[in-house]
């Protein structure tokens, strides 16, 4: 039989250290639902989502009960809706309403894919979809939206970046009576992965099969506790090994759940996304891992190096544990979703500039950051451009999900509730980038794009 301490270790991970499967996400292609009549198109989408994912929630719950592992979210990601808008024309919000209705009827927590991929320019449907995002997010509950504005291969579409600054602000204004929840469901990406199971950036890329199951694992609490148990006398090489071993175990669980779900639903298993995704719950924080490594408060000097090591060790440990690794894979640093980040931001130790540096070595970008309500659209655009540039040059995914807190200023806070947490309003540079943003156009692809 198994070693008694191994058994107890697994139980402690799940019971006390918040190890869980963050999400089982079903990707569904809607390419066969396109119709020149938008009403007919919506009808086909609703029918296909309900047919393919109708049993997703119940299957995930059955697996959760069978193995005794919590599965926190059940989600659906669909083909970027802008592609369907290109075929049908009409008001894109009708698609958002259809997705929302389908998600509610099958009982999933979020549905992603109200998206456009515009890294090189706008195709038919793209611009109409982007302009409709504020209304779509204000009138639906479960729909998540993403726009890919850049890539290493294509460069950065600054027309889209300019537009997105305004869209983010407008999304906040339209939901100001609900703590500006709109932009919390909207992310601007560079090098967006097509198989990401995490929201708000999940969509089902055009290169994906008809349907697929992707799994996102979590477990910052487990990693923090493993480092704590290793002791203060271990050097960083040994700490990296501890993280690797822990990441391996966490990922094995994701692989088990993913293959089980894929078999039960008769849908191919796509990838395990080996991400350390924090939640606002006590003991489920990535910031606390960095502090356990030895930074007094997350945001101090050394934070970027510690995060770089953490991110790399998570990948090294996880990659052998799963047959296919994909999505974002790494450590997430969303401010409002991480108790340690919230505390660090409130104490003034963690600033946006440091977060930007951190995004150059971790898996995502500036995530769930609350900005002062009077932040101009061009500053948000410029922030998106900076982040996209980091992604473009380093051939990695970067993202911006910021929430302008309409009517609030630094020191106040927004409460989103649930996994989205709550965040303090953070100061941002007031220096105007207006002239640069007004130039628009495109930042050409870097030399790194010429690999052939």
């Amino acid at each position, binding site marked *: *039989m198994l070693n*008694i301490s191994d058994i107890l270790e697994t139980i402690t991970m799940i019971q006390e250290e918040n190890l869980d499967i963050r999400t089982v996400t079903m990707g569904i292609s809607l390419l066969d639902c396109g119709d020149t009549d938008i009403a007919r198109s919506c009808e086909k989408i609703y029918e296909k989502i309900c047919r393919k994912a109708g049993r997703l929630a119940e299957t995930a719950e059955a697996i959760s*009960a069978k193995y*005794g592992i919590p599965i926190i979210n059940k989600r659906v990601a669909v083909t970027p809706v802008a592609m369907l808008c290109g075929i049908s024309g009409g008001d894109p919000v009708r698609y958002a309403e259809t997705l929302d209705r389908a998600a509610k009827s099958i009982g999933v927590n979020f549905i992603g894919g109200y998206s456009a991929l515009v890294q090189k320019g706008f195709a038919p449907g793209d611009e109409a979809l982007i302009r409709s995002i504020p209304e779509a997010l204000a009138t639906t509950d479960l729909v998540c939206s993403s726009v890919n504005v850049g890539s290493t291969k294509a460069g950065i579409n600054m027309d889209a970046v300019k537009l997105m600054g305004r869209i983010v602000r407008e999304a906040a204004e339209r939901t100001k009576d609900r703590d500006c929840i709109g932009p919390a469901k909207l992310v601007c990406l560079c090098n967006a992965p097509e198989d990401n199971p995490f929201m708000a950036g999940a969509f089902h890329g055009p290169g994906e099969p008809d349907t697929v199951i992707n799994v996102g694992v979590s477990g910052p609490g487990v990693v923090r506790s493993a480092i704590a148990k290793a002791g203060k006398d271990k050097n960083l090489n040994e700490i990296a090994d501890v993280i690797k071993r822990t990441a391996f175990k966490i990922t094995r669980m994701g692989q088990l759940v993913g293959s089980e779900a894929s078999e039960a639903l008769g849908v191919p298993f796509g990838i395990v996304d080996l991400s350390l995704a924090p939640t606002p719950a006590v003991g489920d924080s990535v910031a606390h891992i960095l502090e356990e490594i030895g930074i007094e408060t997350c945001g101090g000097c050394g934070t970027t190096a510690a995060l770089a090591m953490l991110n790399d060790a998570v990948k090294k440990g996880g990659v052998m544990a799963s047959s296919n690794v994909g999505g974002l894979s790494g450590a997430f640093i969303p401010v409002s979703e991480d108790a340690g980040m919230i505390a660090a931001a409130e104490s003034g130790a963690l600033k946006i500039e440091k977060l930007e540096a951190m995004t150059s070595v971790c898996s995502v970008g500036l995530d769930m950051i609350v900005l002062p309500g009077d932040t101009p659209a061009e500053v948000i655009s410029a922030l998106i451009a900076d982040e996209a540039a980091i992604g473009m040059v380093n051939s990695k995914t970067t993202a911006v999900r910021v929430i302008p807190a309409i009517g609030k200023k630094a020191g106040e806070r927004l409460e989103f509730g649930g996994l989205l947490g709550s965040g303090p309003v953070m100061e941002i540079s007031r220096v105007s980038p207006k002239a640069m943003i007004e130039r628009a156009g495109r930042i050409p692809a870097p030399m790194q794009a010429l690999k052939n």
Partner: protein
Amino acid sequence: MRAIITVVGKDMVGILAGVSTVCAKESVNVLEVTQSILQEFFCMVMLVDLSGASVTVPELQKKIEEANPDMTIHVMHEDIFNSMHRI
């Protein structure tokens, strides 16, 4: 299907009997038992077979908990441990 039952708590008379009585009643076959004292706590691990059982894993956990209210009980599918600790 096989599962692992763990029982942790203060050592006292009749823990093994208390847990195995529930197993017998629900037609759960006990395959292996290991027990030891870890950090002053009694700790028992049982490998059981549920293929002829009248209960599911969560139901079995609930019943054992009811019969042994002073102990911390977990019942989990064996595959979880195998996938995590064996390559």
